[in-house]
């Protein structure tokens, strides 16, 4: 289990990085590497060139404003998780990050890397999608913002083109009358979930104005379902989802987890929203 050979460049500016990436259609970006390195060592990925962006300046920011949380491409999960400001402005990011692998992986893995790796089993894509976040991307054609709903194309597949680098993820702030909750079920603590749900609920007084849930490890893509009017949120969600089976969870079981987790998480998010709304 050793990587196949590749050329390695460690640019010191974004433009150098984009050039290095653009020159080689088989090049890949290395940020935290916590998903990429196993693929390299198993030779499931054999890029001809790695563009290591860890030397780029000014990309490890975790900027928090009233608008939301902006996470730079080199900010490690652990840095985002450690930020009390992040938790204050968008607690769902913090809730989700606690479930991303183990602490040692979070020390190196990047939040933006996780967002654009687009693993349907991972937490952050679903969170980004649920919150209506976006990713800022630099490329030969300049900078653009890609909304989460346009980002996820398929398993491990985004709408970014090969010569683009995701430089920042944006998680919108939680509204004053909104609440969030997060739950996942994994075989072992720290594993990819057998199913996971994040919920976002907005209330007006005691009434729920909107309710939606983001699902991961259920279908081939992170999927957001509007459950505002759902009487039976579990079944309503299942009507919109196409769960798949794997060695850890049968189709029926995965459906059961959606049935169980969805109402639980919605209830918790509603409760959270009410607490916030009542100040």
């Amino acid at each position, binding site marked *: 289990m*050793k990587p196949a*050979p590749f050329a390695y460049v460690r640019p010191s500016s974004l433009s150098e990085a984009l050039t290095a990436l653009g020159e080689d259609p088989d090049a890949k970006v290395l940020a935290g590497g916590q998903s990429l390195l*196993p693929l390299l060592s198993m030779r499931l990925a054999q890029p001809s060139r790695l563009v290591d962006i860890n030397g780029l300046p000014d990309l490890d920011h975790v900027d928090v404003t009233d608008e939301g949380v902006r996470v730079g491409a080199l900010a490690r999960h652990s840095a985002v998780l450690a930020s009390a400001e992040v938790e204050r402005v968008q607690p769902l990011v913090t809730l989700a990050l606690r479930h991303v692998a183990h602490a040692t992986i979070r020390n190196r893995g990047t939040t933006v890397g996780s967002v654009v790796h687009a693993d349907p089993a991972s937490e952050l894509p679903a969170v980004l999608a649920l919150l209506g976040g976006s990713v800022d991307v630099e490329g030969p054609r300049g900078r653009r913002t890609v909304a989460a709903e346009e980002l996820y194309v398929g398993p491990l597949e985004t709408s970014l083109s090969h010569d683009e680098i995701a430089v920042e993820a944006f998680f919108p702030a939680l509204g004053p009358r909104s609440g969030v909750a997060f739950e996942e079920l994994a075989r072992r603590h720290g594993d990819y979930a057998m199913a996971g749900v994040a919920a976002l609920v907005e209330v007006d007084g005691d009434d729920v104005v909107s309710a939606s849930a983001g699902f991961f490890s259920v279908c081939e893509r992170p999927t957001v379902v509007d459950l505002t009017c759902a009487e039976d949120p579990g079944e309503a969600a299942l009507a919109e989802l196409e769960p798949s089976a794997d060695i850890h969870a049968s189709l029926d079981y995965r459906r059961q987890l959606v049935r169980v987790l969805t109402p639980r998480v919605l209830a918790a998010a509603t409760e959270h929203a009410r607490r916030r709304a009542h100040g």
Partner: protein
Amino acid sequence: MAEVFRDDLHDVTLHVNGAAHDVRVPARRLLSDAIRHDCGLTGTHVGCEHGVCGACTVLLDGRPVRSCLMLAVSVADAEITTVEGLGGDDDSLGPVQQAFAECHGLQCGFCTPGFLTTITAGLRENPTPTREEATEMIAGNLCRCTGYQNIVRSVLRAAEIQAGEQS
């Protein structure tokens, strides 16, 4: 299948346990291999090479990372600490190492370096862990021998030893 080409070699200085090691490595050289084979520090062990077992955990600027999930070329500017760097200058055992000896926290010893580095950093962040926090601290490392019972005890005992040394 991609055509295999000759590796370009890179000159890298790895800073390990306070010493500089000048090594010439291909880009694909995993940090775990560089530490073991190029620096000759074989205390760091390789158990899975896909980042799950934690045996290869070293401290990178004080924080635990999987050395099998890093490339040697990408860490030239960082300070690395391996198990060999956890004791005192006089070859004495550090608090975590002492606790493992007292509590029978190891059997075959293969996963141990990863636990020792992880716990050393963990106790720096949280010097007085509860049992639950001690468990969480080691939750990302696999051990096949001990059933973890005595490793959790070792974490708590190390915290005591450390507190005793500091008071």
